[in-house]
């Protein structure tokens, strides 16, 4: 299983695309079937520290969903898109409901100070970026058809380049234990992190809240170790 995790590589680099194309050509691998709608690109990834969560009882969560690329100077944000914040309160309410369901009591963020720290902070962030990839194919049996009409067209084909571009949205929930941090050295150990990502149907259009709801529910469903009840 470990090998699989290491093998997790997004198909967004041209190198990977070339490698995949080479494999297909060299060994004739075949990939029938396809995704048929953007919501089938949704992926929920959760990771955790392996620590025991039963010691946590309280949490604090900011009242806004933070746009990580807003005012950021990170190269990752070069292709950032504007994020619609009109659904922030719905998203945060849903997360709060699931946290409550798992036995966590919320501490209002404005009551948090050095003397009144929650057991964990839950920070919710969002980003939307335009991504692209180029894939080069060198088909063995290019144009010209096959027997009986293969004629002069038979032979190595010309390479074909396809460029794919898509807008990807990501919602992330990050749980940090303030007792397990070293702010001076900027070390914030993450106890739990959930990433919901998917291809946006139209970056400037309305957000499909069903997809976000489904993702949040799934993130908590597959993280039952968070349950302190």
């Amino acid at each position: 299983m470990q090998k699989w995790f290491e093998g997790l590589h997004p198909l967004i680099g041209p190198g990977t695309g070339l490698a995949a194309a080479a494999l297909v050509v060299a060994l004739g691998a075949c990939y029938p079937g396809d995704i048929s709608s953007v919501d089938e690109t949704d992926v929920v990834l959760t990771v955790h520290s392996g620590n025991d969560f039963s010691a946590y009882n309280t949490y604090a969560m900011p009242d806004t969903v933070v746009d990580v690329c807003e005012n950021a100077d990170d190269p990752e944000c070069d292709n950032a898109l504007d994020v619609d914040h009109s659904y922030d309160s719905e998203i945060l309410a849903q997360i709060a409901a699931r946290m409550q369901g798992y036995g966590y009591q919320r501490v209002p963020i404005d009551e948090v100070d050095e003397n009144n720290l929650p057991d964990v902070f839950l920070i919710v962030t969002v980003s939307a970026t335009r991504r692209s990839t180029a894939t080069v194919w060198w088909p063995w049996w290019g144009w010209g058809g096959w027997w009986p009409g293969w004629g002069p067209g038979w032979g190595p084909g010309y390479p074909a380049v396809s460029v794919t571009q898509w807008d990807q949205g990501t919602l992330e929930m990050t749980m940090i234990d303030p007792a397990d941090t070293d702010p001076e050295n900027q070390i914030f150990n993450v106890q739990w992190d959930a990433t919901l990502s998917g291809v946006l149907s139209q970056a400037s259009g309305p957000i499909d809240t069903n997809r976000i709801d489904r993702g949040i529910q799934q993130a908590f469903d597959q993280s039952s170790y968070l349950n302190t009840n």
Partner: protein
Amino acid sequence: MMKAIKGIIASLVLIAVFSGEAQAQDWWWGITYQMSAASSLPGNSDSSVNFIEDFSFRGFGIDARYVPERGAKYSFGFNANWNVLNEKSDFGTERNTISLPTADITGTQLRYFNSIPLLANASYYFGERGGIRPYLGLNAGTYYIERRVDIGVSALVDDAWHFGWAPEAGIVVPLGRPEVAMLFNVRYNWAFSSGGTGDQKYWGFNIGVSYR
């Protein structure tokens, strides 16, 4: 991809035709259409759950058998095959979460299993020459197997060469002429664990035409 498949089939047919004419009459050459189903019979060290559950109608092979003398009850030969299994599991179904020690990944999954068995074969035939001939066979050789899961815009891939074997039971049915026959067989493909990938096992249901 279909063009590639057709091209390969056409090449194999041509190889079979020319080889059949150039070689002695005792070589039987055949092409087979192959269907597959993953198997979870005991002995699978990888997982108790099949990588792919769906039945596959994608596969083909080339089959060569050398009969040492006319009327012999046994043959030796080799075969090269390509089997493709695939499955799509939608978001929210039980099979679409991959769990690792400290991580879980959920999403619509497209699973692919590409297997290329390259096997030597020995078979023993019952019945009489010229009639319908049931047979038992044993294949042994190598399997190149690539397993791939597409999830979101990412892919998880592992691939390995495996040693493996495949017991086979089949029937040869003459088609009116002594040099042409239909071939039906069921094969149990068992590729042993290799390169961190566990045993891979699947049933093969093959239909073909053979001639000498």
